[in-house]
């Protein structure tokens, strides 16, 4: 454990003269030195534009970049590497599908189904697409534990529904959704399913072929990698039939002023100079996860979540928000009668980074009738001792406000 923590330079820093306790991993997690080095080494040794140059540097950079595509393919067990599209992040990946898929396959009177516990990034792109195509957005409800009510699926799924878009794990509550069940139910009617995996890839093994999902989206920066890079996985058949998202360099085959023909997958969806440096950083992050072991990560975090919930409940005067049977990564709670903003302000003074507010999931907060929650979220480098500091900070909050 000690040596794992020591790989993260930022964990040695102080905040308000206290050692940093970083429990905001669902927002973004910290980067091991090897990822930081991989990015700087790229700029020191390899920087050049890819896929074009015949010179040595360009070829090396192209090779490194394409190698990461292979790594991602293996990491999520995709069938083909050209099913891996690099994007800026989960949000852009979802927007890509919302634009390109809906342009081709959604028309007036159709429906798109999302769930009640989505992040804004898996709501707004669909609202925009529905508005554009004259379609309707439907919502799979959740119960008071923060679990999706899959029993409502038969009512909601019909041949009007052209796509289902669901989070693998809820960022606000940590609920692990029964995505396999949802995918199978949708596929029975031939409806494709997009999974927002932003909160899942760093915490649990993802196998897109076993899931049989049609699209899977995630971000590098929530999996020990850099910001500004993400992945859209899409089944070949869908990606082939969807029109391009953006036009420009790289995505073209031939350009004349009369007509342009588009490049093959995956390049069709990667217009412009790609974010090579961060792709290489992502590749190193994937190696970090493999070296650490995704099951070790999952087990470590499970212990931390359990300990955190136990300590919070023992403290008293705390309400857990979201009590699903299966939870990952996140503990969302409220200190009774204390506004999350007030609590967060005091907790911060203890050097503890937690998130307060609606976590970009306002409909979830509205459902529970609360302005927001305090959210502690975990990564493999967190410790029980850090949770003890959080509890101390909470005791101070209670002294000041209760």
């Amino acid at each position: 454990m000690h040596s794992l923590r020591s790989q993260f330079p930022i964990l040695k820093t102080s905040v308000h003269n206290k050692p940093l306790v970083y429990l905001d991993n669902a927002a973004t997690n910290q980067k091991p030195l090897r990822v930081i080095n991989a990015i700087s080494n790229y700029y020191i040794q390899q920087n050049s534009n890819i896929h074009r140059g015949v010179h040595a540097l360009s070829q090396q950079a192209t090779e490194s970049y394409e190698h990461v595509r292979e790594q991602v393919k293996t990491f999520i067990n995709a069938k083909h590497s050209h099913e891996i599209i690099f994007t800026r992040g989960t949000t852009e990946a979802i927007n890509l599908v919302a634009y390109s898929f809906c342009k081709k396959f959604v028309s007036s009177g159709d429906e798109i189904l999302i769930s009640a516990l989505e992040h804004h990034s898996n709501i707004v792109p669909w609202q925009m697409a529905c508005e554009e195509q004259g379609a309707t957005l439907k919502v799979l409800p959740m119960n008071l534990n923060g679990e999706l009510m899959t029993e409502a699926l038969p009512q909601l799924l019909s041949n009007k529904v052209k796509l289902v878009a669901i989070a693998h794990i809820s960022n606000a509550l940590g609920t692990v959704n029964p995505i396999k069940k949802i995918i199978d139910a949708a596929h029975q009617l031939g409806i494709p399913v997009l999974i927002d995996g932003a909160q899942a890839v760093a915490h649990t093994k993802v196998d897109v072929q076993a899931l049989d999902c049609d699209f899977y989206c995630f971000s590098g920066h929530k999996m020990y990698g850099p910001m500004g890079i993400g992945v859209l996985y899409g089944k070949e058949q869908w990606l082939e039939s969807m029109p391009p998202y953006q036009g420009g360099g790289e995505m073209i085959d031939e350009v004349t002023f009369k007509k342009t023909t588009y490049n093959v997958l995956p390049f069709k969806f990667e217009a412009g100079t790609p974010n090579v440096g961060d792709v290489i950083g992502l590749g190193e992050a994937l190696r970090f996860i493999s070296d650490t072991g995704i099951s070790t990560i999952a087990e470590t975090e499970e212990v931390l979540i359990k300990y955190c919930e136990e300590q919070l409940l023992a403290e008293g005067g705390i309400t857990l928000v979201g009590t699903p049977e299966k939870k990952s990564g996140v503990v969302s709670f409220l200190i009774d009668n204390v506004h999350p903003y007030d609590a967060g302000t005091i907790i911060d003074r203890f050097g503890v980074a937690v998130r307060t507010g609606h976590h970009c999931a306002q409909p979830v907060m509205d459902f529970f009738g609360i302005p927001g929650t305090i959210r502690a979220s975990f990564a493999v480098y967190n410790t029980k001792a850090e949770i003890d500091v959080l509890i101390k900070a909470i005791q101070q909050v209670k002294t000041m406000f209760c």
Partner: protein
Amino acid sequence: MIKEKTDQLVSEFSLFDEWMDKYTYLIELGKTVPPIDEDKKKEENLIKGCQSRVWLDATLAEGKIHFTADSDAIITKGIAALLIRVFNHETPEAILEADLSFLDTLGLKEHLSPTRSNGLLSMVKQIKFYAMAFQAKS
């Protein structure tokens, strides 16, 4: 005079060694805010860009502005109270010309940064906006 009031605040705050005392003071101050009428807690008086909800209302009487505020978070309410203490019963001109450097001196700067969801900054902006509107009307 705004200057006298801010000097007074700065000297009060200088007595606090610990950050916790400052927040305890703000919490106490929050309790002294003249309560805003329920009907003033409307959408137009809601300040955007805060993690907590803040309502700020202003009326002009005999050339001076009278502020009331409320928030669902206590620290935010305390900050509103502090600003009201400084800007209440002042003329629009005095408010528009006021020197805001006391906010830095008070050590509340972190509330000014965008990462703090702009609570303080949005409130100051709104106060100046009211002053500008009343000045334009008269």
